[in-house]
């Protein structure tokens, strides 16, 4: 018989305001096996932990139940306390009477009743607990960063700096991401390329960093410390090891009418291309959708002109398998499509553009060499209207419910730069709220208004009407003067909401990492573990976790790197001892468990058994590799003969809990 102690936590008023904690402690005293029961204000505090430790010793407890918050919060705390008092940590059970009781109920009487039931269930379980010992598994000292934007670059550089190997997988032909398309950065207005390209070069030159450009993650297996990842290297039809990036092929390619994605389709590129001058790696790529040689075998110009023989029309996709200890997701974002917002006439006029397109129109490497000209007729615009919150904060189903966070600041930047470069241009910004929290951010926005004379108007645009003479009628609200405005503009710039890159969803499935309803990756804890996924060994960097500007992205990227370094610095990881175990006598060799195991932890082998009649039989039975098993329990449900059981969560333990609840 166990000697069980019960500790009921008040959690200040978090629990005690809704649950009569004294009554719970009292009720637990009469449960079988309970030799001690008490309550305390903060069980997780040092005094609370000491109370537990002292009680274990004093009452010679063999198991304890803590009625407190979620085990995700403090299970580890209480296990450690128990261990220091000489108790096996797996003899500790948590009854969650906060998240699953006090926080979700209002009335004290039924809430107290429920807390008692939850406590009883935990006591019933502890009776069947057995001491468990955690094993160890080795850590592969190499990290994978998925996505080569500023987030991925910063994370990779920091990991490499600590001396660990790190690979970047980037689906585009070059690393750099969205930041390469941005002209200047707020609030300091330094040139994005000037601060980004040195980091890109650092990545290329760092011997610890390997860049898989034009590649995608195809498959992920394994677990923290020991992931096995298949990387698809898409055929670029150019031998990366030979290409010098001289660019002669891009000059000679006769297929010159390919929409240039780097400039968002506002100009053209050739079928063989290097995205931009500072691309890393600076290697040409053939766009198979447009290359005449690949489509119908007629051309071959690039091959003829290539001096190093790098062109290879026969190149195929190849697959690389690599082992990693940690994976960082840095898949970034895209502006949303504006199909649902055509009251702004984006599809009807070339002079209604997105903010990212505007960046290209003001960038020296853009389609207009940095001179702000209208896409339709190449004329200088004299009146520009900026529209904020296009598709952000939208609960109608057309856009995104969240604030995209970066638009207020980049629009202030755009407005300011226009007024600085072209003082004869009138600039209107329609806003709902101006949100500028951040160091020197509000000062920046106010400068746009006060020093540069940008007209900020509180209100939204309702309708945009392009006219045949090239002018654009903008109909909008001015809420402060209670007027409907009609502005004849030359250029309309829409601050489109941002959304996670489409690749994130399938990647989340591969990584078994959770996402929210907007397809942003969720963090292990929104406040205290913001750069970790709840899935061990998966870390988050940049906008894949939520909208962020560059300073915030870089901070988070470094934070993710620090977490990865902390993991890779360990030689071994303590494994979760709550793993599955097969009862070989009951196993019928059906392979059901092997099929459902997401970690490949189960294998079958033929074993000799001595039968009751003293004969020897050879039977095919399952066995679990405890270093690989993550204790998900899928096999225990799949097993038709009940041979699979999960240590610490055995069928009998769970049934005992259910019995206690239903009693």
């Amino acid at each position, binding site marked *: 018989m166990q000697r069980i102690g019960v500790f009921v936590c008040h959690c200040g008023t978090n629990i005690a305001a809704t649950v009569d904690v004294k009554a719970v402690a009292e009720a637990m005293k009469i449960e079988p096996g309970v030799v001690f029961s008490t309550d305390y204000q903060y069980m997780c505090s040092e005094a609370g932990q000491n109370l537990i430790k002292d009680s274990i010793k004093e009452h010679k407890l063999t198991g304890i139940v803590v009625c407190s918050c979620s085990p995700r919060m403090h299970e580890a705390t209480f296990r450690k306390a128990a261990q220091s008092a000489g108790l096996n940590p797996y003899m500790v059970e948590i009854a969650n009477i906060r998240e699953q009781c006090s926080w979700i109920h209002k009335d004290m009487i039924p809430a107290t009743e429920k807390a008692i039931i939850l406590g009883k269930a935990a006591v019933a379980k502890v009776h069947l607990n057995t001491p468990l010992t955690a094993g160890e598994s080795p850590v592969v000292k190499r990290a994978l960063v998925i996505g080569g934007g500023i987030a991925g670059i910063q994370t990779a550089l920091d990991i490499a700096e600590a001396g660990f190997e790190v690979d970047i997988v980037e689906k585009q032909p070059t690393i750099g991401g969205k930041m390469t398309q941005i002209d200047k950065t707020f609030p300091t207005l330094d040139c994005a390329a000037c601060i980004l390209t040195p980091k890109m070069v650092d990545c290329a030159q760092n011997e610890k960093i390997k860049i898989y450009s034009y590649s995608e993650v195809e498959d992920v297996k394994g677990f923290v410390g020991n992931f096995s990842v298949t990387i698809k290297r898409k055929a670029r039809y150019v031998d990366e090891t030979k290409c010098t990036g001289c660019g002669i092929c891009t000059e000679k390619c006769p297929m010159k009418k390919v929409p240039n994605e780097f400039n968002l389709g506002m100009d053209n590129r050739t079928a063989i291309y290097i995205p931009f001058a500072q691309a890393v790696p600076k290697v040409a790529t053939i766009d198979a959708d447009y290359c005449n040689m690949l489509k119908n075998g007629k051309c071959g110009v690039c091959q003829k002109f290539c001096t190093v023989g790098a062109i290879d029309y026969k190149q195929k996709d190849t697959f690389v398998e690599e082992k990693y200890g940690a994976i960082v997701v840095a898949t970034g974002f895209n502006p949303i499509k504006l*199909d*649902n*917002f*055509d*009251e702004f*006439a984006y*599809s*009807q006029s070339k002079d209604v553009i997105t903010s990212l397109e505007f960046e290209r129109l003001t960038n020296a490497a853009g389609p207009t060499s940095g001179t702000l000209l209208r896409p339709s007729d190449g004329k200088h615009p004299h009146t520009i209207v900026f529209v904020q919150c296009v598709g952000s904060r939208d609960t109608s*189903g057309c856009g995104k419910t969240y604030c995209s966070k970066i638009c207020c600041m980049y629009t202030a930047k755009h407005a300011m730069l226009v007024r600085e470069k072209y003082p004869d241009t009138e600039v209107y910004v329609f806003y709902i709220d101006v949100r500028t929290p951040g160091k020197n951010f509000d000062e920046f926005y106010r400068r746009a208004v006060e020093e540069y004379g940008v007209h900020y108007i509180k209100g939204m645009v309702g*309708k*945009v*009407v*392009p*006219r*045949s*003479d090239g002018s654009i009628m903008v109909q909008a609200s001015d809420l402060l003067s209670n007027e409907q405005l009609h502005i004849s503009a030359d250029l309309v710039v829409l601050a489109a909401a941002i959304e996670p890159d489409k690749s994130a969803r399938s990647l989340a499935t591969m990584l078994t990492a959770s996402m929210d309803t907007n397809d942003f990756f969720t963090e292990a804890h929104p406040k205290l573990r913001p750069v970790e996924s709840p899935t061990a060994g998966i870390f988050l960097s940049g906008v894949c976790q939520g909208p962020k500007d560059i300073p915030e992205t870089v901070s988070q990227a470094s934070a993710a790197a620090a977490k990865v370094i902390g993991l890779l610095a360990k030689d071994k990881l303590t494994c979760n001892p709550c793993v599955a175990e097969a009862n070989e006598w009951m196993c019928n060799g059906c392979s059901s468990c092997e099929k459902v195991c997401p970690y490949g932890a189960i294998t079958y082998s033929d074993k000799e058994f001595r039968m009751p009649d003293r004969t020897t039989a050879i039977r095919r039975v399952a066995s679990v590799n405890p270093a690989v098993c993550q204790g998900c329990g899928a096999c225990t449900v799949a097993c038709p003969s009940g041979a699979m059981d999960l240590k610490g969560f055995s069928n009998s333990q769970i049934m005992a809990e259910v019995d206690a609840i239903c009693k």
Partner: protein
Amino acid sequence: MIFSYYPGCTLKTKAKDLDRYGRKSAEALGITLEEIPNWQCCGGVYPISKDEIATKLSSVRALASAKEAGQDLVTLCSACHNVLKQVNNDMANDEEICAKANRYLELEEEYHGETNVIHYLEMLRDKVGFDKIKELVKNPFTGKKIGAYYGCLLLRPGKVLQMDNPENPKIMEDFIRAIGGTPVIYPMRNECCGGYVTLEDKALANKRSGKVLENAKDMGADMLITACPLCLYNLNKNTDGYDVPVYYFTELLAEALGVKD
């Protein structure tokens, strides 16, 4: 193909052409439109207020009648289309309105929004197919620059009517292409003509219709087509000095199919 057909009051009087050419064209396309027996006026505008029940009943009767016949219900007038679809949406999704209407009507079988209401244009797009129409065109409107005028009732509210993208529709443009014309896209095509307020405020109707016509003309339209008698009235009468001929789309369809008188 047989459909139940709800013409509505205006199509029996001032908008006979919309109806007549619609029926002739349907016949030429091998479609039978069976007029619902004893239909009553839909009321012209959808009664928005949740406690307006009586004003929705005529629509429910028509909807239930089509359900009884086991047919999709085709409408032609934009206003009827708007009212019937919105009432149908209430009957399917608003329990209170549905219960009250059923209690009042005492139909043999309760009506819960089962009927599929489609506009004549949707019938052309989804049941006949614009490609098929293209094949059957005898007198194409080659070289004609035609602007589609959607107005407000044909598309909005988009979530209920579910006809096309309410901000960038293409069903009428595709129709124009099918009859051989060149569609002119102008952004005011889904803005209101002034509607029924024309009765007491001609200045407003002039201003609204004027803006539509100005924009259509500016973008190069030789003529406009509409599915709404009230839009046709406003765009013809309250032009604010802008002169663009406006036709019912069925008239152009009948002409293209060679069945216009």
